[in-house]
């Protein structure tokens, strides 16, 4: 704030406190449901309910020793990595194409590329089901990876476009004049400079796949179930605290992803400062 050393009036001080109070309340509103599930992971009861009578690590142990959950973790990482990789390649190419020039229909195309962000996911999933069924892509890893890649690509487009907005396209001309083919110029000049945006986008794409359940509900066979999908059926069938354990694990992974994004943002800022 730029109040510096100016003395505040009473009303300014009051409104400042009000603002702080609202901010704290909003933060609690956002975070409390997430945190509410964590203590249950360490409950020694048999059901997913408060109050907690005693604490133990048995549900954590159960989570990590269960074959079903191990499968789900493996599936989540497998599908998440593949779809993030695909989304990153496609999203980066789309962002470059969209940043290059003005052409007819550019806005329409941009909206089209970003549409998975706004289309209701259940509609997307139903559509995918009917689209994939005749192609034999339902009940397959390929189908889920493709579905998640499309959901993750818009994040990559957004983050890479942001990096590209500060990119001097003269550098690509300079590289070409020095003898670099377009592909080489991309690899040696553009990619290193927009890399923070690319990696951030990849992390977001991974996160988008990691917590996605609706398309998995429609497309996955039992052996392709991911963590959220397992939690979903767990909630319907047993309501055991093992779901809380799975949640705790997912929260830890999400926090790690966020931390990585934050680190990258700092790095990008440093790079921009020196560019």
């Amino acid at each position, binding site marked *: 704030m730029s109040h510096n050393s100016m003395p505040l009036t009473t009303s300014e001080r009051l409104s400042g406190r009000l603002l702080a109070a609202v901010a704290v309340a909003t933060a609690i509103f956002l975070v409390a449901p997430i945190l509410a599930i964590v203590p249950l992971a360490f409950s020694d009861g048999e059901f997913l309910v408060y109050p907690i009578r005693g604490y133990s690590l048995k549900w954590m142990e159960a989570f990590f020793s269960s074959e079903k959950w191990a499968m789900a973790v493996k599936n989540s990482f497998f599908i998440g990595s593949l779809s993030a990789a695909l989304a990153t390649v496609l999203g980066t190419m789309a962002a470059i194409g969209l940043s290059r020039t003005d052409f007819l229909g550019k806005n329409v195309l941009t909206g089209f590329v970003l549409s998975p962000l706004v289309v209701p996911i259940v509609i997307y999933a139903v559509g995918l089901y009917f689209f994939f069924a005749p192609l034999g892509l339902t009940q397959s890893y390929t189908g889920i990876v493709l579905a998640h890649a499309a959901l993750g690509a818009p994040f990559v487009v957004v983050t890479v476009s942001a990096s590209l907005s500060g990119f*001097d396209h*003269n*550098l690509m*001309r*300079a*590289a*070409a*004049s*020095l*003898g*670099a*083919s*377009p592909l*080489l*110029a991309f690899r*040696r*000049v553009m990619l*290193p*400079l927009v890399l923070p945006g690319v990696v951030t986008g990849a992390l977001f794409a991974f996160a988008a796949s990691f917590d996605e359940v609706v398309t998995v509900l429609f497309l996955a066979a039992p052996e392709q179930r991911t963590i959220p999908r397992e939690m979903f059926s767990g909630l319907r069938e047993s309501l055991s605290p093992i779901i809380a354990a799975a949640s705790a694990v997912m929260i830890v992974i999400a926090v790690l992803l966020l931390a990585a994004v934050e680190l990258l943002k700092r790095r990008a800022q440093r*790079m921009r400062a*020196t*560019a």
Partner: protein
Amino acid sequence: MKAPKNLPTRQSDFATAPTLVTFEKISKTYDGHTHVVKNLDLEIRRGEFLTLLGPSGSGKTTCLMMLAGFEVPTSGEIWHGEVPLSRKPPHERGIGMVFQNYALFPHMSIAENIAFPLEVRGLGRAAIAEKVKRALDMVRLPQIADRRPNQLSGGQQQRVALARALVFEPELVLMDEPLGALDKQLREHMQYEIRSLHMSLGLTVVYVTHDQTEALTMSDRIAVFAGGRIRQLADPRALYEEPADGLVATFVGESNRFDGTIVSRDGDTAVIATRGGTRLEAFAVDIGATGPAAVIVRPENVRIGAAVDGLRDVITGRVVDVVYHGDHLQVHIAAEGLDVVAKQPTRDAEAPTVGSEIRFGFLSRHARAYDPARTDH
């Protein structure tokens, strides 16, 4: 390095040089209807320093970009020797390029920047190291190999950009206002360096600027652009002393302009009645037998005081201001409703008093008459 003095005079040196690049009927439009380059023919000679000079938006950069391959001509063909360039992508043209904003790769060290074109060409490590070192010596920056571009001053960055553009030994180098971002002193210094690199390496340079002093001092030939056409292509001296049309006359160097109508014309000589009511005898450059005319006189050719004796046409005006420029005086004279400027070497000028009446005139060969329609841009 060859000393500049040992070179033969510029004109005779390049007049007979073989052609390196030919623009053949080149037209360019970005939007489909306005042509920013119009049916342009241009021959660039091997080893020359050719400057494209002209007002903003006249198509200089566009021409350079078409030669570099970053823009495609709408029609016509550019030839590099016997090779048509239209199907050749920029990275296969082997043309060096220096940009106004330097365009150094910010994530690479200076040495890596300069090594880039050599790596791309698959040279070995030892050869690259050797050439990078020589290139840095050439631009007199031997100590900065490990720094990043953002740790250098503007002048240093531009010298690195120059080293990078020259290290792969292109025969042709394009520069688009390379000194535009530098302050005056540094710019003059770099002009000299670029000029001496051009001579010592035998480069062909195509240089874009809208600084006419820079164009006059650096070039073997200058092409004056206006509205997508070349208005005159000549060596600096011919361009300054014998501009082919009114635009060139007013764009290159300073000038006084008297508008009027042609009274009579006899071969190279025309009599013009100025709007102020004076009849001037002028050298007919670009006018017909009748109609309007713009008479253009360089300030250094305007004579004042005793020097007007014996001149055919003498005009009387009033001294408005006398500005001291060290080596010369600029005398501003109000006459015929115009501000006429006369430049007098300080050593032989008796400074006229401000407010006094003054007589001035010029030789009729120094008064050049042009078509006013081709004078304004």
